[in-house]
């Protein structure tokens, strides 16, 4: 495990501390590397047994869009990874209602089950977090 966690011996060094981590995904999946590298942090965080949630807003909602065909841009389609999050006990996925609507999308267009919340509700959730990382 220490290879995955960057040499951190999880049990010893964080002593059972559980914090609320929120990962805020705001960028389209391709075009910049933020979404892909952001997802890598999410996966690592699972090894630390923290209270993890993910929020998708702005163009970040496109990260979850069904039917991504990336061959023509020579990029790996990493959207199946979001479906694997459940296996890491990461099941709190929130999508901003306004961002979906602005883009003509609904929850049915997404590769995973999510909870759709308004910007106001997401703001409340954010205020409850210990650590907010946005990518």
């Amino acid at each position, binding site marked *: 495990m*220490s*290879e*995955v*966690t*960057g*040499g*951190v011996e*999880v049990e010893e*060094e*964080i002593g059972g*501390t559980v*914090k609320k*981590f929120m990962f805020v995904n705001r960028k389209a999946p391709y075009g910049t*590397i*933020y979404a892909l*590298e952001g997802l*890598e*942090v999410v996966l*690592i*965080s699972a*090894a*630390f047994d*923290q209270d993890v949630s993910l929020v998708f807003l702005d163009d970040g909602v496109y990260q979850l869009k069904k039917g991504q065909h990336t061959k023509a841009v020579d990029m790996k389609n990493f959207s199946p990874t979001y479906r694997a999050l459940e296996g890491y006990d990461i099941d709190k996925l929130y999508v901003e209602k306004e961002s979906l609507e602005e883009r003509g999308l609904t929850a049915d267009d997404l590769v995973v089950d999510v909870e759709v919340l308004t910007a106001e509700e997401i703001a409340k959730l954010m205020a409850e977090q*210990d*650590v*907010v*990382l*946005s*990518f």
Partner: protein
Amino acid sequence: MKFGILVNEGPFQHQAADTAYHFIKAALDRGHEVHRVFFYHDGVNNSNKLSEPQQDDRNVVHRWSKLAEEHGIDLVVCVAAALRRGIKDEILAPGFRISGLGQLVESGIQADRLVVFGD
């Protein structure tokens, strides 16, 4: 207060590294602790000792090394992001070390506040 810092953008191209640096200086001046700066995305380029800005400009990379030397701050460069961008031990400026993303998550757990600099 104990701060952890995340820098997500490269030097010169973006202001994030400058703002992070000045934030850290101000925090230290006020008696706060900064235990770690984690460099991710293009932020890993902050560790490249081959960087050679013009004489009349600030030297972002040297500035980080000096901060580490004077205040014992742990400067950690993400290994996966670094390898993608050709950042290796051979070109690492003093005070930096390459390690895994776990160091970032750990920083979030240990610090009172994790402050993110980037877009």
